[in-house]
């Protein structure tokens, strides 16, 4: 009789990477639908371009690195990166911008570090930040939500959107406009009440800002679905959202002209929910333990608010996540969980002989 020696980990997850990534893709669907309804064809074109570019870039680099292409493409991680980028880039940006962002994500942020599992930074956010600081004009032009379009103006149809994206025609007047966070960034000393009255973006909103509120709700639903399916634990997203809410409550100051906006506005504007459930939860670039994830999420929530309120960019999820990624190994170092059977937590820096 022989005993096979099996090394750890002894507990296995029944879900493969490919299956997890597929579930993530499914969970983005509600958000995708709401975004496409609110902002037109641009979102779908972005998504298509980004996924196509992600798969091609991944296959090309795998070929150069002499790795099995089919095997690595089947884990769907490149597709997920493409989808996340497609959802975060503004609609109707030129096609080359989407390609540049995706190629940076896959080639520089992921494959140059050794592929899936070895990347210290979230690939989609690296790609987003690269184009955000390189092409500020294109990246800060958002499309007006469908219900706020002026009389007689509608979102460009599919063909027209394609000519805008590929041939560089500019969209009609009134199709592009400010986002809720933009309005607060450029409030020019108005009271919050005045901002709310002056802009239909707020005055005709249900609770946070037309368009973005429902997109955020949709991402929240998708995220809760993933939480239910046990794709990730609650620690990261909850810590991020709670910190963001706490900070915006602390500095809300009743709506003076200095106020950076209400907690509800911050939770349901920009990329808050998308970031909390689809970016912060990235298992590769986040902290590892549950306690670590609480700290990691809280750090990102704090940074999001600090940059939104006092920085020069209207939204900050990408920057905050990258800074959080920087800190993740450091957080891991101080939050090593207690090993079963031991009374004290082991210090990550302690040597084996010391125990």
């Amino acid at each position, binding site marked *: 009789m022989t005993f096979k020696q099996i090394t750890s980990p002894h507990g296995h997850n029944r879900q493969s990477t490919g299956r997890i990534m597929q579930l993530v893709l499914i969970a983005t669907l509600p958000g995708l639908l709401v975004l496409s309804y609110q902002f037109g064809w641009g979102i779908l074109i972005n998504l298509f371009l980004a996924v196509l570019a992600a798969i091609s870039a991944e296959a090309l680099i795998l070929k150069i690195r002499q790795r099995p292409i089919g095997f690595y493409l089947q884990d769907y991680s490149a597709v997920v990166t493409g989808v996340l980028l497609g959802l975060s880039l503004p609609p109707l940006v030129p096609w080359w911008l989407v390609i540049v962002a995706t190629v940076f994500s896959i080639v*520089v942020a992921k494959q140059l570090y050794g592929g899936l599992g070895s990347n210290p930074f979230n690939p989609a956010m690296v790609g987003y930040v690269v184009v955000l*600081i*390189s092409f*500020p004009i294109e990246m800060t032009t958002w499309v007006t939500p469908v219900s706020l379009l002026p009389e007689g103006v509608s979102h460009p149809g599919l063909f027209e959107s394609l000519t805008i994206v590929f041939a560089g025609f500019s969209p009609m007047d009134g199709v592009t406009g400010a986002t809720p966070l933009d309005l607060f960034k450029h409030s020019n000393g108005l009271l919050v009440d005045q901002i709310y009255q002056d802009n239909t973006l707020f005055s005709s909103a249900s609770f946070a800002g037309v368009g973005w509120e429902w997109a955020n709700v949709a991402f929240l639903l998708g995220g809760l679905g993933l939480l239910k399916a046990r794709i990730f634990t609650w620690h990261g997203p909850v810590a991020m959202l709670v910190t963001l809410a706490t900070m915006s409550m602390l500095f809300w100051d009743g709506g003076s002209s200095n106020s950076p906006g209400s907690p509800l506005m911050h939770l349901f504007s920009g990329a808050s929910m998308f970031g909390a459930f689809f970016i912060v939860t990235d298992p590769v670039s986040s902290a590892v333990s549950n306690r670590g994830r609480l700290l990691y999420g809280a750090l990102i929530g704090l940074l999001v608010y600090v940059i939104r309120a006092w920085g020069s960019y209207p939204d900050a999820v990408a920057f905050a996540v990258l800074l959080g990624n920087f800190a993740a190994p450091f957080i891991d170092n101080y939050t090593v969980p207690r090993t079963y059977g031991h009374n004290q937590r082991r210090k990550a820096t302690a040597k084996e002989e010391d125990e």
Partner: protein
Amino acid sequence: MSQGFKEITTNGLWHNNPALVQLLGLCPLLAVTSTVANALGLGLATLLVLVGSNTIVSLIRNHVSDAVRLPVFVMVIASFVTCTEMLMKAYTYELYQILGIFVPLIVTNCAILGRAEGFASKNSVGLAALDGFMMGLGFLLVLVALGALRELLGQGTLLVDMHLLFGPSAMNWLVKPFGENYSFLIFVLPPGAFLVAGVLIALKNMLDNMAKTRADSHKSKPVKGAKRVRTTGHIN
């Protein structure tokens, strides 16, 4: 310890290149290489300082005790940097203003102190000067390559502002291969410097590996199943 002319040259330019292999002086390497003109300006200044300091350090190497050698070397380097700074103020004032703090900071460039300590303090004047020149040239070439790539990728131009170094006749050297409106800011900003420098280092390693495999394939392989060349006695 004496190295030949050829060895010093190949070491400075390739095998022991200060920027690509020793990774010294990265601060100016990354900070000022946004255009060819800036890179060339700082590269020339560094080259001048390196040749001067190596020569002087080699001259005084037998008269300085070990305990005070580092402060003395830094003094020598700082004097040359001040001279260079004054020269730049006199002849290329605009470029001097663009480079700003990075001209005085040449004093702290580890490549220079490294060569003074590692080579010039142990070798004769001629060799030390040659080493300084070759190391400086290696550094300059990498700076210019980095500057050219970043300028091209970042602003879509090549040889912009060269008149700051070469006078008004260089105004029309400017090339714009990608048209008027091209810009890709990340390559102008510091992250682009890290990216391009990383790619250059990878490229050098790749070329080295290729050269090594080629050299290996030329070597005659040892014959398998070595024959007995000498036998003693009779073997059944």
